[in-house]
């Protein structure tokens, strides 16, 4: 039985300082018994002969000097089991759904060790999300981490849900298992997700972790680690393909900043701790494939950019770790276009490995390059039109201008239930491109034009 200490000498924000303890391990799990009989949990952040600093996950409200502190002799572990599929858990991993307790098959360290770079497999299997602006222009592959950079009031949740619903690997029947971790989102948003999971039956293959806006901020630091530990178990022990949705990373980073400030650490940019890059990397890097293992982890972190500022430390550091980003556009959203994917600012770094013959279609790269270039040209012309008017444009320019509008209206826009196959996406691309003069299609090889251009296909 662990010894109980009543030697708290300081409580500051989320931190509790305990004196005169036996040696306590760094990262050790702590339980604190409050006078009212409730129990709070925490973790050791700093340990020395004189004082132990504990970060309390559930907030320090109600803890007094006489509260009993027990060190549990182990670091935070996540009990995992196959039965977790279909369950809804709290941000610290306790069942919320009134279901039976989970009987663990394994208890795993929640701080995941890094995958040995030598053991990693190159991610290259195309995931069809059914969303043209992603599949066609910013292709996702299995094992990738591709965040959605969004802003407040934008429908990033819908996009994430649609991806979770529709994602599939061509030629494979198996669906993705979904691990969903909510960090500091409102209960309304959480309901929205849950309803959708229930409606589509996705919940059967999902594990849900909910840390809501009114749950303690510090618990948010735990939630994604629990979720990813579960994902790793499902992927690399049980051989499943797992899609992890983490939302909203901005709340996670706020919690990180809060702890940093409470510890009086020297802040880096905008008050966020200097180790935020490493900390975020320890989440994002838990995506990937491993040689010789069947499963995979694909990550969809969602973060709302404060003030839509992509240079803010959270999206900035994220962009340096993840393999690209899907950027949501307020302009498109205002025009009523769903999904409002800002194609020109989005990027998938692993796209090249997942497209082309054997993955999607031989003309994929060329079509996407051409769509991209033509859309960029059309967008540039909009600036000009604002000054000189549409009439002043040449015939050719007007075609590009119209193309950009059609691209947004038909290629980017689709309904929330519309699941386009990659063939449909590429053919739609061709259809839009056919409105341009053939000699303007400079990025496409002649042989593809002969084979796929609508004017040649009809013959």
């Amino acid at each position, binding site marked *: 039985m662990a010894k109980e200490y009543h030697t708290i000498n300081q409580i500051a924000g989320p931190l509790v300082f305990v004196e005169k303890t036996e*040696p*306590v*391990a*760094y*990262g*050790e799990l702590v339980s604190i018994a409050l006078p009212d009989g409730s129990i709070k949990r925490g973790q050791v952040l*700093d*340990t*020395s*002969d004189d004082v132990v600093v504990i970060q309390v996950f559930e907030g320090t409200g109600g803890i007094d000097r006489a509260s009993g502190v027990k060190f549990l002799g*182990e*670091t935070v572990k996540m009990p995992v089991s196959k039965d977790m599929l279909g369950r809804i858990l709290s941000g610290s991993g306790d069942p919320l759904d009134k279901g039976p307790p989970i009987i663990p098959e394994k208890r795993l*360290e929640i*701080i*995941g*060790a*890094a*995958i*040995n*770079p*030598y*053991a*990693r*497999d*190159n*991610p290259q299997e195309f995931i069809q999300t059914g969303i043209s602006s992603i599949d066609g222009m910013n292709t996702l592959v299995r*094992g990738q981490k591709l965040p959605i950079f969004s802003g407040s009031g934008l429908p990033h949740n819908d996009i994430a849900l649609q991806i979770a619903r529709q994602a599939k690997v061509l030629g494979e029947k198996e669906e993705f298992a979904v691990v969903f971790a909510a960090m500091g989102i409102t209960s309304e948003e959480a309901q929205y997700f849950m309803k959708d999971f229930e409606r589509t039956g996705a919940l059967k293959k999902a594990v849900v972790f909910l840390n809501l806006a009114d749950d303690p901020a510090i618990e948010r630091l735990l939630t994604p680690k629990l979720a990813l530990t579960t994902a790793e178990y499902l992927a*690399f022990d049980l051989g499943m393909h797992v899609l992890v949705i983490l939302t909203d990373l901005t709340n996670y980073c706020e919690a990180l900043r809060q702890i940093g400030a409470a510890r009086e*650490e*020297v*802040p*880096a*940019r905008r008050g966020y*701790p*200097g*180790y935020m*890059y*490493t900390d975020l*990397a*320890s989440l*994002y*890097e*838990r995506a*990937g494939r*491993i040689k010789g293992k069947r499963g995979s982890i694909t990550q969809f972190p969602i973060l709302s950019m404060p003030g839509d500022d992509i*240079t*803010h*430390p959270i999206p*900035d*550091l994220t*962009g*340096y*770790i993840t*393999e*690209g980003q899907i950027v949501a556009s307020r302009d498109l959203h205002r025009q009523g276009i769903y999904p409002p994917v800002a194609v020109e600012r989005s*990027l998938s*770094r692993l796209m090249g490995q997942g497209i082309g013959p054997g993955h999607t279609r031989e003309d994929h790269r060329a079509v996407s*390059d051409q769509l991209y270039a033509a859309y*960029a040209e059309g967008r540039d012309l909009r600036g000009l039109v604002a000054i000189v008017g549409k009439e002043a444009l040449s015939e050719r320019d007007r075609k590009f201008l119209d193309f950009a509008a059609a691209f947004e209206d038909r290629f980017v826009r689709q309904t929330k239930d519309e699941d386009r196959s990659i063939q449909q996406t590429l053919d739609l691309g061709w259809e839009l491109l056919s409105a341009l003069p053939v000699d303007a299609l400079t*990025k496409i090889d002649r042989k593809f034009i002969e084979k796929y251009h609508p004017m040649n296909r009809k013959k």
Partner: protein
Amino acid sequence: MASGKSGRISRVAGPVVTAEGVSPRMYDVVLVGELKLMGEVIKLVGDKTVIQVYEDTSGIRPGEAVVDTGAPLQVELGPGLLSSIYDGVQRPLPVLMAKQGDFVSRGVTAPGLDRSKKWKFKPTVKKGDDLHGGMVVGEVPEGNIVHKVLLPPGVDGKVTDISEGEFTVEERVGSLDTGHAIKLAHNWPVRSPRPYLEKLLPDIPLVTGQRVLDTLFPLAKGGTAAIPGGFGTGKTVTSQQLSKWSDAQIVVYVGCGERGNEMTEVLTTFSELEDPKTGKPLMGRTVLIANTSNMPVAAREASVYTGITIAEYYRDMGYDVSLMADSTSRWAEAMREISSRLEEMPGEEGYPAYLASRLSEFYERCGRVNTLAGPTGSISVIGAVSPSGGDFSEPVTQNTLRIVKVFWALDSKLRERRHFPAINWLTSYSLYSPMLEEWYRRNVAEDWSPLRLWAMETLQKESELQEVVQLVGSDALPEEQRLTLEVARMIREFFLQQSAYHAVDTYSPLKRQYEYMNAIRRFSDLSKKAISLEVPLDKIVALKVRADLGKLKFEETIDADLKTILGEMDRQFAGLGV
């Protein structure tokens, strides 16, 4: 006062551990806790020793033992480094994987060099020879090169015996009269630069075969360059082209705090890429150091030193080494993280005040030198910086730019326009050009420098004219200025754009680069003459020779074509009355 080799932990705060009762020297490696985690002494205060630990410290508690190894962080230098892939403290990742599985767990050590492999050693010294530290005692074939076996710097003596045969890195191959056992490998502390005789001026270019680099922004052998590796700028292809084609024999690639999937890509492509000089895999002359962003931060801090020490070792054999550090910003962040755990007074943006001096110390370890063994060798460093928020005024970028002499500005706008290599010709620079002038004059062409200046001026003029064009359209410009735009476009599209994937275009020898630029200049001169004779520009641009000039870079016969095209040019211009 503590005197022991071992003591006890008194505090654990993340990767920083404080110990008592042990009195190591600064930067000694210590083994921390029951798991014997590797750590390094970074501060001594009174009886307390502050240690940065290279592995995760969860579960470590006060009271556990700390043991001093009595030596600083070292790397093993000997045959077997090439084609290896290491973590930040030279643990071979394939060995770690065999030992502990797919995830890197803690407390496992593995020697940097394979203990069982036998190497064919052939001595180049004989009994009775007087040797001093750093001299070559023999040769071993390794990968794509001949590995020179070096006496460790600081060891002198007369050879009493030395034998030919097959040896492992631990076996004795000979002895000195001082009793020193000559072996194929020796250790070297990573934070101490390896000694050399003297540093030489960087007046020889590192020839890369990439036209925009060699002609406009050359890097000297032993020089330093920075590339901003913002997301999606084509850094990977550029560094691969450099590794593949530059005339450095050895490539050291340090992946410092980067993506795991990216390292996997480097790993797969480097093993698949063929070394154009030997036809063997490129890995045969490459050492990879991979410390991804979620591997321990202290090891990330060390990885850059591990890389440069290995580079110095091959330099000491007389080779030209190129070291790619990707990314130095992550390295600086690792310093910041550790510094903040030490509760040091921060400088700008939380970075430690010694950031600038650490960066300059690192870059100072490159250079072209006369080695202790005699021949010259060099290390050229290409450091990627990842300015946060794309803001070049942040401290890491600023301090790096103060030190390095070459800046290759990779530009995402150019990449979007599919202009490769996406190196911006207006913002890039090389301070080596004046120093290399003499070399180019002697080895390539008498008028190399004026030609280069002409190209730069034309591009500069173009960017000024573009501003006007955007307001009034190009039709409003006088013919002569429109010609400048046309010539600049030829320089950009024909000369600067280069396809890494095209068999002929991927590498362009210096002579060819010169001839090519010269032909464009001749076209420009003749066009000017034509315009003064009132030939309309459209007619000049429509000349067949112009289109031919653009196409010939993809032809096998390019060198012969470049010779004949000048005559053809004269002929076609004569047709216009010039």
